[in-house]
């Protein structure tokens, strides 16, 4: 019974590697009990960001890894979800209805925009789609920063969310940890992310997912056995966009702030690409590993380097190399090494190693 339930939950797509299973379990437990295992504002912030990026990267993997479609508009969809919540909360006032309306509107807008881009450009060559997404994403980013009356421009928007989801709401103490609305908010993020991830895992293992893989392998033949390739690619794009928007909504609910830098910047797009490549494309679990590693590195590599720099103070050159300001350099080195040694990503490497 339990085995069957697990099989259905994972849609029959097991990690297929002992080490990978252990790592994934560790991440799941770490995130599920983050408020208790790693108390503190900063670690909770990191844990929530990991949850949200897992969904965001997994939705990108549906596109890049499973469908072979290169898109540069993923942060745009993420941003649509985030701004949906922000705008609804600003104009409708604080409330769950605003969160719901904003979330649904953001996801719907993302899906419709993806549909338009898809039908317009997926008929032709894949590279054309990539260019169009780049153009549309840049246009939207400019638009958001220019329409400052609506979007707050570069400053972004601050807004109120229901009190039960904010630190001001106190519930008492559990295992020595003060349970506040922030922790409730974290669990909203955690469970929503878990659900969305499992949903994506189901989609890639559904009959639809099989068609996407067939199209990625040989679109010419997929068409010749009766699949309208353009419709499948378009649906995958819409679905991926909608899930990215949902991740954006979660991010907006979590941060109570949206701005171009946190949701729309091209830097985030690059981060997503790095996470999916480091984790392993076309595996879904790669999104979990990639997002976790990357967000941890973003948040703690600097601390670690500060410590290492301090510890090697007497030595020549090394303290300078390990200076926290050089963290991007080391992240770059890590990226190159990981692509060189694990061209199929960490998940691909672990699966082939068993």
């Amino acid at each position, binding site marked *: 019974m339990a085995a069957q339930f697990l099989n*259905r939950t994972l*849609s*029959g797509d097991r990690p297929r590697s002992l080490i990978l299973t252990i790592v994934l379990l560790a991440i799941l437990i770490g995130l599920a009990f983050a408020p208790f295992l790693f108390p503190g504002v900063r670690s909770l912030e990191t844990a929530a960001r990991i949850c949200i990026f897992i969904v965001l990267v997994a939705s990108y993997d549906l596109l890049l890894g499973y469908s072979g479609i290169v898109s540069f508009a993923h942060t745009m969809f993420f941003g649509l979800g985030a701004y949906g919540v922000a705008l609804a909360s600003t104009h409708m006032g604080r409330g769950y209805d605003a969160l719901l309306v904003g979330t649904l509107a953001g996801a719907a807008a993302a899906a419709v925009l993806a549909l338009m881009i898809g039908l317009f450009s997926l008929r032709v060559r894949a590279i054309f789609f990539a260019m169009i997404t780049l153009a549309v994403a840049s246009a939207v980013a400019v638009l958001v920063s220019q329409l400052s009356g609506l979007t707050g421009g570069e400053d972004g928007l601050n807004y109120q969310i229901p009190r039960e989801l904010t630190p001001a709401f106190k519930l008492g103490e559990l295992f020595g940890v003060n349970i506040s609305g922030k922790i409730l908010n974290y669990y909203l993020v955690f469970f929503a992310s878990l659900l969305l991830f499992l949903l994506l895992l*189901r*989609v890639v*293992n*559904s*009959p*639809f*997912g*099989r*068609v996407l*893989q*067939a199209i990625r*392998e*040989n679109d*010419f*033949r*997929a*068409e*010749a*056995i*009766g*699949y*309208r*390739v353009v419709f*499948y690619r378009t*649906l995958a794009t819409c*679905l991926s966009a909608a899930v990215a928007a949902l991740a954006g909504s979660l991010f907006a609910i979590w941060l109570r702030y949206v701005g171009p830098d946190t949701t729309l910047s091209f830097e985030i797009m690059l981060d997503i690409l790095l996470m999916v490549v480091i984790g392993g494309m076309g595996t879904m679990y790669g999104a979990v590993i990639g997002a976790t590693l990357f967000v941890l590195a973003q948040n703690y590599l600097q601390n670690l380097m500060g410590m290492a720099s301090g510890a090697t103070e007497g030595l020549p050159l090394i303290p300078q190399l390990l200076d926290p300001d050089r963290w991007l350099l080391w992240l770059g080195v890590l990226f190159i090494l990981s692509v060189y040694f694990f061209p199929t990503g960490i998940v691909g490497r672990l699966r082939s190693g068993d």
Partner: protein
Amino acid sequence: MTQTLLETDSLTVRFGGHVAVDAVTCSFRAGELTAIVGPNGAGKTTYFNLISGQVTASAGSVRLMGEDVTRDPVAVRCRKGLGRAFQLTNLFPDLTVLENVRLVIQARRRMGFNLFSMASAHTELTVAAMAVLERVRLEPLRDQKVGALSHGNQRKLEVAILIALDPVVYMFDEPTAGMSVDEAPVVLDLIAELKADTDRTILLVEHKMDVIRSLADRIIVLHNGALAADGDPATVMASDVVQEAYMGRDLADV
């Protein structure tokens, strides 16, 4: 009188100034195996591409069971019953043998847009796919990746995919291309079996004359994109056109 399943009416395609298929009017009847022959560059594969939709006609029409499909995209024609196997092996190399055939069955049952069920839970697809694999004797290799199969087995899988499509019109484009003398009969036997079982129509592009002699009910000859001869094998093969075409001399000289 047997039913006409497929007709091409003045079917023409031009690439720039070159007329690759030139006003071919022909019909194909149920229960018939038609061999399409002609020298290299005669337009046989292009004629196939026009029928199955990979190439769009410049003029003329393709009708499947009376319905005009000339403007339909490839996938739609496939669903309506135009099944095509390719000259160069054209499969899903990173998927298993079983998955290749399962995908075809899944397409036929219109299950591609099923997003939220587990593909592995649809055992009826697996059962149907296994039945096809048994027919072509590939079932022992069901879990092999297709890219790792021998060329001969890949050709067999091409046939399996066509069988799985269960089309109205079976289109084989040089099914034995690149196969050794030992391997070729296996595929030809499969086509012979298919011919014996089916009341559909089979189109076969083939170069090997002995193959044609043993399988075909009828031969059509394409030369420079045009229909040069059409009839029963004995007559056509004895005719001047075939002799000339295969000797390589221009028909205009005859």
